[in-house]
């Protein structure tokens, strides 16, 4: 699907909303028309972020004239509030879903605190939890899109390791510089998940972003060929068998992978752990916005 990458905030809105709308449909709009479970799980703590904007490097791989490019930076405007969990879904929260038959047990054998984030969960597990939690609470919960995550993460957002050198005659220069950039971060593996709040709170009041648990997003991996102007997209291929994972650095993982160490990141430092947090949609509100924009 050709996709135009706009330059300015006002135009960016449309592009920003489309993937969100798609991911909502993918999860299924189970909203408020379902009966909540009789014993509803405890309500998750959330933070409601006021509308705002970010400059955002798009996820995926971008080519121009057959050569890898820096991920295009976009100014993204969020014109509606974003309600997102303060903490990642905890091991205890997830255990409720497993007990209720809504989720597979996590691939996690280590002794971790109950109030630590759940780890050893795949994209499929995270979506199963979102489905179950939506039904159990009667609200609509889903994974954040990558740009929502970046917006919420604010100063904790890092994005890609990008090869800084672009040498048409020597592709190896890019591989080497990106390898060195990753090495220069000097981040040692930090495998064991810790209690909620251990990695502090960011400027927007969200806890534990970019600690040692990476988070699944609803955004598919994409490879795009940029148009001659370097801004528009000439062609792109989505691979929704792979999703964007955010944390200390951005990476891409196959949907069924639950151990960050075994997926993605061919060289360098892989994610220590995979977990997630959810966003709550208020369908009426979102629909009003979308219809005002003429998108539905």
């Amino acid at each position, binding site marked *: 699907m050709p996709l135009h990458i706009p330059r300015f905030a006002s135009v960016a809105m449309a592009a920003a909303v489309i993937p969100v709308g798609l991911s909502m449909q993918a999860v299924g709009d189970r909203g408020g028309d379902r009966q909540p479970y009789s014993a509803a799980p405890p309500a998750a703590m959330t933070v409601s972020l006021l509308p705002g904007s970010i400059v955002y490097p798009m996820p995926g791989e971008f*080519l121009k004239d057959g050569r890898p490019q820096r991920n295009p930076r976009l100014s993204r405007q969020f014109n509606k509030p974003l309600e997102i969990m303060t903490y990642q879904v905890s091991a205890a929260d997830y255990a409720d879903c497993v007990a209720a038959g809504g989720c597979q047990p996590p691939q996690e*054998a280590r002794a971790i605190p109950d109030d630590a984030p759940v780890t050893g969960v795949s994209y499929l597990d995270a979506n199963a939890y979102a489905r179950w939690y939506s039904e159990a609470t009667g609200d609509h919960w889903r994974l954040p899109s990558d740009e929502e995550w970046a917006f919420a993460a604010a100063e904790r957002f890092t994005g890609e390791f990008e090869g800084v050198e672009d040498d048409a005659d*020597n592709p*190896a220069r890019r591989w080497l510089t990106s390898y060195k950039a990753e*090495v220069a971060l000097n981040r040692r*593996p930090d*495998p064991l998940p810790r209690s909620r709040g251990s990695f502090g709170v960011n400027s927007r009041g969200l806890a534990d972003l970019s600690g040692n648990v990476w988070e699944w997003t609803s955004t598919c991996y994409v490879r795009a060929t940029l148009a001659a102007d370097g801004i528009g997209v000439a062609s792109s291929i989505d691979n929704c068998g792979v999703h964007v994972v955010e944390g200390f650095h951005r990476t891409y993982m196959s949907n069924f992978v639950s151990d960050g160490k075994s997926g993605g990141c061919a*060289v360098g430092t892989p994610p220590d752990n995979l977990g997630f947090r959810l966003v709550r949609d208020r369908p009426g509100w979102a629909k009003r916005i979308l219809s005002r924009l003429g998108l539905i």
Partner: protein
Amino acid sequence: MLTRREALFGAAIGAAAVAAMPAFSTTAAQANIGTLARERIKLVAPPFVHPHDQVAKGAPKIIEFTMTIEEKPVVIDADGTTLNAMTYNGSVPGPLMVVHQDDYVELTLINPDTNTLAHNIDFHAATGALGGGELTLVNPGEQVTLRFKATRTGTFVYHCAPGGSMIPWHVVSGMSGAIMVLPRDGLKDDKGKPVKYDSIFYIGENDFYIPRDEKGNFKSYETAGDGYDDVIKVMRGLIPTHVVFNGKAGSLTGDNAMKAKVGETVLIVHSQANRDTRPHLIGGHGDYVWEEGKFANPPAKDLETWFIRGGSAGAALYTFLQPGVYAYVNHNLIEAVELGATAHFMVEGEWNDDLMTQVEAPKPVATN
């Protein structure tokens, strides 16, 4: 009933009596020993190798080495899994020693009293006395000096071999290394033409057998002896929990990736004291490979993967032709990726389009 510690020492003392017999080292045919020049080498930790001449200068010498045995816990993967390691000179693997044919290797092996176990050294390059193992068993608080003549050229494993189950246990606890005996006139290709290397790396591969608790997590022990029974059980299953280069998964990647330049010739010495392995340089080759490691045999050419028999060391010579990040792996890819046997080379230089080029970048499949 003996405690574990007493049992270990008991075994040591029996064998130590053999070591006390001095007769071997003072028999005939050593008339000229006193006249030979001596050179003292300071060993360095792998993957690096102490400075050495590729072509020997002058007559055979006595090359003096000292290695201190260190028992200590070492972390062997990113999860912090700990091995109660036994080490030659503090590193897993022990350092690569380099001499020339007909040199005498004179090793002083020190077992400080801070250690708890008896140790020795068996050189596959040496002749007699179980490779020197019979003459070198030292208890904590003892040291011993062994001299052997490097009669055969090649890369050879050395390892600890203190008897019975102690042998494999000490080896899979990290006690192995390698020695390279170079021909006096240096290495030669298959046609007898001299070949040289610009740099040398020593990659010792280890298989580790770490016991797990009932939940499947790796256990740790206060001392090596405390873990002995559990470790032996895992060893007997013959399936390692870790297969690593240089003592730890990821120890030759990132910051510690090996470095080279396009046009540079690198000699990679690879040892495995216990188990077969099959090194492979992804995107490169072995120009000249001494698979069995013995330089009296002509090297094989243009290998993709080479086989290192358990209990041996081999050598591969390669001139890098293309820049980039290379992975050097044990090409049992499960062992490389899941168990840890991966190293990286960072190679700087100019790209050669003639050797490879991406004719067309990925794009959507063409439709009518």
